[in-house]
């Protein structure tokens, strides 16, 4: 039992943190969000590093690493609030890889792995982040089945979501359009769900770091506000929520590859914890910043917005908690539920 990253995994995390720290500054995030565009230079660089294909099998042009490595990158891109279609591309690919036939994988994955095409994943008729710019869309229908569509086969209506760092759209496609994926959609969406949870952990971590730095400096009544327990205890809770969500997310990422029979439960655990955590942590970050935290000028709102949209993606906390209860009840007594 070793819950620590391997040296290679630590290295991936460090490299990603360093790179994004200089390339995806809040200045860049702001520029991209206000211009309703991605940071193309950043995307080109990520593609050059092979990040979109990190968890795609080598035979389809990916790096053939696992869900843990994918989670590490998603967390760091969340930490940087990177204005890029990374998360959407890798989650679409995750579903195709887990649920597609060999033929479907060979058709769609190489372009996603190489970054030649970007992807999007979402529920039919719901808000789908990055769909406006995507070439490949994986659509989840109400019955849980997944379809893959070329952009031209889907009806895509751009929508401004509260998170302008993503190019969101409403996507629908009448039955019959696109190709149903061969396997059971759940196996793919659970993997994708873990990546979304990882991004939320990164968002929480950044909000915590920014807040701690701010409350050490900001003074009122001749005292750094971080010395007041209403604030320091809030920060302690931000850490607890972030670390708890991180434990659940790393476990789920590990389970996705090592013990897939535990993935359903682990994915819901991770998503519920990360959604609750990120919403609470980013809201607390705004509160601890006071008036400045409420302005467009300060950067904490990018985190709050990422958290809100991410928390709703692929099921919010409530449906995942209810799923956990069903899984637990079924385990305890096979006849309940």
């Amino acid at each position, binding site marked *: *039992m070793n819950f620590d*990253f391997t040296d290679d995994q630590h290295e991936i995390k460090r490299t990603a943190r360093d790179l994004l720290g200089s390339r995806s500054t809040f200045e860049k995030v702001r520029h991209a969000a206000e211009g309703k565009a991605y940071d193309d230079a950043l995307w080109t660089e990520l593609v050059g590093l092979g990040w979109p294909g990190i968890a795609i099998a080598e035979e389809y042009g990916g790096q053939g690493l696992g869900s843990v490595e994918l989670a590490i990158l998603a967390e760091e891109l969340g930490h940087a609030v990177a204005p890029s279609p990374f998360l959407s591309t890798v989650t679409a690919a995750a579903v195709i890889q887990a649920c597609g036939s060999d033929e479907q994988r060979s058709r769609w994955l190489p372009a996603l792995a190489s970054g030649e095409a970007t992807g999007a994943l979402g529920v039919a008729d719901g808000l789908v982040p990055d769909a406006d710019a995507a070439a490949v869309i994986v659509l989840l229908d109400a019955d849980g089945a997944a379809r893959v569509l070329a952009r031209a086969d889907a009806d895509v209506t751009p929508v401004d979501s509260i998170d302008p760092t993503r190019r969101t759209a409403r996507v629908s496609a009448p039955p019959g359009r696109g190709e149903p994926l061969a396997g059971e959609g759940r196996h793919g969406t659970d993997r994708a769900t873990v990546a979304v949870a990882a991004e939320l952990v990164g968002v929480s971590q950044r909000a915590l770091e920014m807040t*701690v730095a701010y409350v050490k400096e900001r003074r009122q009544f001749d005292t750094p506000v971080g010395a007041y327990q209403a604030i320091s*205890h809030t920060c302690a809770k931000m850490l*607890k929520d972030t670390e708890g969500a991180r434990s659940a997310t790393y476990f789920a990422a590990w389970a996705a590859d090592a013990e897939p029979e535990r993935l359903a439960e682990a994915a819901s655990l991770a998503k519920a914890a990360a959604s609750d955590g990120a919403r609470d942590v980013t809201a607390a970050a705004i509160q601890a910043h006071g008036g400045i935290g409420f302005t467009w000028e300060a950067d904490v709102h990018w985190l709050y917005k990422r958290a809100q949209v991410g928390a709703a993606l692929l099921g919010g906390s409530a449906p995942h908690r209810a799923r*956990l209860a069903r899984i637990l009840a079924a385990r305890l*007594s096979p006849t309940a539920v």
Partner: protein
Amino acid sequence: MDLTFSDSEAAFRDELRAWFATNDPGPEPSGEDANYAWRRDWQRRLAEGGWAGVHWPREYGGRGATLTESAIFFEELGRARAPLPANVLGLLLAGPTLMTYGTDEQKDRYLTPILTAEEIWCQGFSEPEAGSDLAALKTRAVKDGDGWVVTGQKVWTSGAQHSKWCMLVARTDSEVPKHKGLTYFLMDMEQEGVQVRPLVQITGEPEFNELFIEGARIPDENVLGGVGNGWKVALTTLMNERSGLAFFLQVRLRQLLDELVEEAAARGLLDDPVVADELGRLHMKAEILRLTAYRGLSTIEKYGAPGPEGSLTKWMWSETNQELAQFAADLLGADALTMGNRWAYELLRSRGNTIEGGTTEILKNIVAERVLGLPRLKGATA
């Protein structure tokens, strides 16, 4: 990252399960004294099986288990629905503190009777005027010949009524700043001058006590870690307190939650979305506790001593345990409120979880100051 247990860890778990399968503590008796006798007997059997000091080094009669194996032990202990051994404070707190700071003579003298439950230990830290602010304690030890004479009062001393020895922190120098004038003593409870008075708790049971100390004598050889070093030695004890129990407690929490889910299913309540949501949330919190505790283990195994992060799991456990009891009361209504019902007991006992072993507020201070590096308010230290 690899969360599968290694072959040797799995073998360790199998060996334990086999042992528990043939060693059953029997049903829990009611009543404080009978319960205590049952737990003492249980510890003797654990000791005979070589399991009592599972995390103690072999040279001290322990099993020399790794941290992960020790976690497995506590998980299996909980899973077997066995009680914590009677001398839990001796095993988890006094023993490791003695190993860190004791002289060879002290280790020879005290460690074995701790393992076998022959001599029970209690923790005499808190005082009426010094709880969270432990360093403010007033109990005084005055040098007298080749020993010390102690006068003062301790409070909330768990298990004092059964104890032979007390980990006592007392002030030996009132001229120096408060953290510096303390000394850690091993005090014999069976002497004139030490009076134990039970305090009835919220549950109606006396588990902790007041301790009145009036002219009790402690010989020089019972100073642990040197005169004036009491604060440092006490911190070692507290560190062990917060890191040791997590796995046992988390299994207990899980068992309670499983029982509540079965109860909800039996009453046909699982289709109620509010019920499903809350049970799912409690399941999530219990799992987060387990996983975070395991993450902590890997960190300790790699980087050394437990850090203040251990405060996180204590906080998570106490909060979740309280929420579980409260939700059971919501769900089961009047049934959960009649004395004798286990949920009624949990509803009452769990209130102590966020106070014992450091209050949640103090844990938050520790996280804020030592993990996040936030400035501390004048006077309010952790």
